[in-house]
Structure formats: C-alpha cells, structure tokens
C-alpha cells in the first residue's frame, strides 16, 4: 500500500473535520444529558399581577450586593396603553432567562459560564472568568454585565449563592407584594409552578432562538400592538 505524506495529511484532516462536526452536532442536539439532574428551577412572571413597584429589583440588589451602576434584575415599563381614563402599563422583567441551551455557556472560552447540572441554573465561576465579554455579546437577552467589584461577568442566578443556600425562595419572589412571581422545581410533580405551567398560557421570550429559557411569562392581557 502506498501512503504518501500528502495522502496521510488529507485523510487526517478529513477525519478531524468529521469528528469535530459530529461532536458539535451531537452537543447541539443533546444540550445537557440530565439523568442526574436533581432539580430544574424555573420562574414564572405573571405580568397580569405585576404592578411595577420595583420591590423585586431592590430586594435583589440588597440580597446579592449588586453595585449601583449595574443590575441583575430590572422592571421595564411599557405604555401607557388604552384611552384615558382606562389606561394601563405593561411591565416586563429583564433578567437572566436561565436558558437550557445557553449561548453564554456555548461561547465562554474558559468554561467560566456554566450550567449547574444539579439545579439547571446558569452560573459564573468568577475565578475562571477573564472578562473577554464574549458572553455579554452572545446573550440575546442582554442581561449579562461586568461586575465592577469582581471584574467578572455577572447576572441573576436565582439567588443560588444567597437565598437558595439558606433554603429560602429567591429575594425577588419573597419581596413581590402581588405574588406575580412563582419559583419552583419543574421536575417536582406537586410543585405549584408545574400546575401553573399546565394551566396558564405561558410564553417565553425569543422562543425562536432555541434557547429554551427557564423564565416563563404569563402575558398581560393589555397588549401593545400598534395598528
């Protein structure tokens, strides 16, 4: 059998390209194998109950020691809609969507952005993060930022390091005066969040991107379609 150097390089190159393409396709098709996933935390924001009081955002800032110039959670006010005196605002929660197929985890060169297999929460390893900001650019929800204290990427982690560690609900859920936020484990058959998911018309932001967010929305009936 004749094997020239050129032939060898050609075959090796093709093989490597094939393996790389296969691995990528496999990884995309099977986001996370989760037989050992103990929990899958989700959050439901009921816009029909939200009054835009910002109590959640303030509680989040206090609990997680978020510096003033950045925020993990913001409530954006849209509107007013309708004719006076029947006018309504519409409140949108902006925070990490805890995507199952997270673009930030995909692009992070060091693995500092990762999905905790035990809880399904997307977390940041401050030490591993070098601050390239690729995750901030990749996040289609624009909720990541550089924490001016740690110089690492930061964002909502459902209070994993603060409230959840103490066995409590996330700060925003506790602070909400109208019960517009529901938090729980979607793998638990008896959880309230699961009943809500099965009974209410929930949507997710930018579903077409295939990110499979774990923050669900019960949309406000007062729409914002301009004709």
């Amino acid at each position, binding site marked *: 059998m004749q094997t020239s*150097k*050129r032939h060898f*390089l050609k075959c090796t*190159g093709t093989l490597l390209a094939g393996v790389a393409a296969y*691995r*990528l396709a496999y*990884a995309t098709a099977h986001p996370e194998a989760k037989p050992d996933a103990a929990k899958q935390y989700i959050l439901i924001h009921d816009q029909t109950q939200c009054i835009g009081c910002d109590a959640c955002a303030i509680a989040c800032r206090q609990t997680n020691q978020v510096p003033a110039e950045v925020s993990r959670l913001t409530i954006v006010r849209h509107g007013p809609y309708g004719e006076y005196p029947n006018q309504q605002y519409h409140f949108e929660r902006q925070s990490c969507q805890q995507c199952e197929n997270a*673009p930030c985890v*995909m*692009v*992070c*060169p*060091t*693995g*500092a952005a990762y999905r905790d297999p035990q809880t399904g929460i997307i977390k940041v390893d401050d030490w*591993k*993060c*070098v*601050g*390239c*900001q*690729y995750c*901030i*650019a*990749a*996040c*289609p*929800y*624009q909720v990541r930022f*550089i924490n001016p204290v740690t*110089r*690492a990427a930061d964002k909502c982690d459902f209070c994993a390091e603060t409230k959840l560690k103490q066995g409590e609900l996330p700060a925003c859920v506790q602070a909400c005066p109208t019960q517009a936020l529901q938090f729980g484990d979607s793998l638990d058959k008896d959880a309230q969040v699961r009943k809500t998911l099965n009974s209410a018309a929930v949507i997710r932001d930018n579903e077409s*991107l295939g*990110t499979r967010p774990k923050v669900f929305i019960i949309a406000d009936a007062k729409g914002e379609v301009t004709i």
Partner: protein
Amino acid sequence: MSAFHFDSLVWHWPIAIYLFLAGISAGAMFFAILLKYACLKQTAHESKFILAACIIAPISVFLGLGILVVDLTKPLDFWKILVFYNPRSVMSVGVIILMIYQVFMFAWIAAVYAKPIQTWLGLRFTPINKLLTWLAQQHASITGLLLILSLSLGAYTGFLLSALPGYPMLNNPVLPLLFLISGLTSGAAGALLLGVLLKGQPDSKEVKFIHKIEIPLILVELSIIFTFFMGLVLSGGQKQVAAATAIGAGFWGWVFWLGIIGVGLSVPLA
C-alpha cells in the same frame, strides 16, 4: 446613541482592529507561501516581498493579541484562557488555532531563511544550526500545515462574530467567508506595500504573481458582499433593518459606499 456608541455594543473598536490584524497576518502568510511555492521556489529568501510578508505576519498577530489581552477586564488573568478550554466556544478554538499558527509561522520563516541565518551564524551555536537544518528538511510539511492554519485563522475571526445570535447582521453564514477573503486581500496589500517600501521592484514577477491571485479575490469579495447583503434583505425582519443601517443613508452607509466599495475595492481594481 451615535455611530460609535449604542446600547448593544459590547466589544469596542480595539476588537475590530484585532480582527483586522489577525486577518492581515493570515493573508500575508498565505501569499508568502504561494509566492514561494508557485513562483520563487529556492530563491524566496532573496525576495523583498517575502521579507515584507515575514515582517508583517508576526508583528500584526502579536499586536492583535496584545490588544486582545489589554481589552480583557482582567488582563493579568489571560493565561486562564490558555489553560481552560471549551471545545464548543469559537473563541477557545481560535486560541488553539492562533497558538499553533504562530509556532508554524516562525518555523516557516526560519526554514525560508535557514541558509542566510546559518551563513551569518557561521560555526557558532550548533544546536540552532541543527534546528534550522531540520526545519529546512521539514519544509514541505510546515508549508502545507501553515497554509491550512492561515486559512483557518482568516475564517475564525468571522466565525467568532457569526456565533452571536443577538446581532442580526453578524449572525450570518456568509460572514466567515467574507472575513477570510477580506483578510487575504488585506494581507496581500500589506505585503505589496511594505515590499515596495523595502525597495522591492514594483514591476517584478512577485508583484505580477500576487496581482494575478489578488485581483480575482477582490472580485470574489465583491460578489460575497453582494450575497451577504442580499441574504440580509431577503431574510427580512431585524436582518433587513441591520442591512439598511449598514448600507442605507447615514454615517455607516457613507463609510460602506465610499470607504469599502470605493477606496477599498474599486480603486485597486481600476
């Protein structure tokens, strides 16, 4: 909101310069290889244009990487990017390509200039002499791998940006090809310019050879730009909006038509 500052901007202009420098390095190396392999053969080390490419390639890639490190929020932690890898991250794969590319770039330059360096060293530093002889023997394999690596480096910068789902204009399959061709032509232009400045002959066979490849590449680049924007317009929605912002009326429209299409691509063709 202005042309240089807007909400969705994460990577500022230094990153654009890095992407440009990486493309130039890849392009200069690509044309140096073609020049030696298809035109000059054994006399490559005498050519001012090969010399120009061998100066431009390392300097631009080092400068680019320097910018990249300084632009991190934790520049002193840059080594972590070399220690921890994520095979699904374009940036991580790019770091691997950049590292291997630099090794082979220096190996190739050393192999091309092996004889002159050995003459200059004389009988001193035997290990270096041995290494140079060995590199010169391995020249064929180094050339082949470096050619693949330079093409990978040129395309990687495009993949880096097309992996961003939040940017309708960049999240585009044609982008890596456009970056590759643009980097190759920029590298060729850089090598030609510095070659002439180093007193290379503007009507030499090297210049003719580079033009014979570069001019068709510019035509391909124009058709890829056309495909790129047609793709955006036909996709509709935010992609169409992005295309209008880039090439419609407004600051960036002027930059595109006058700068890129006019000065960048049409003038060299004329």
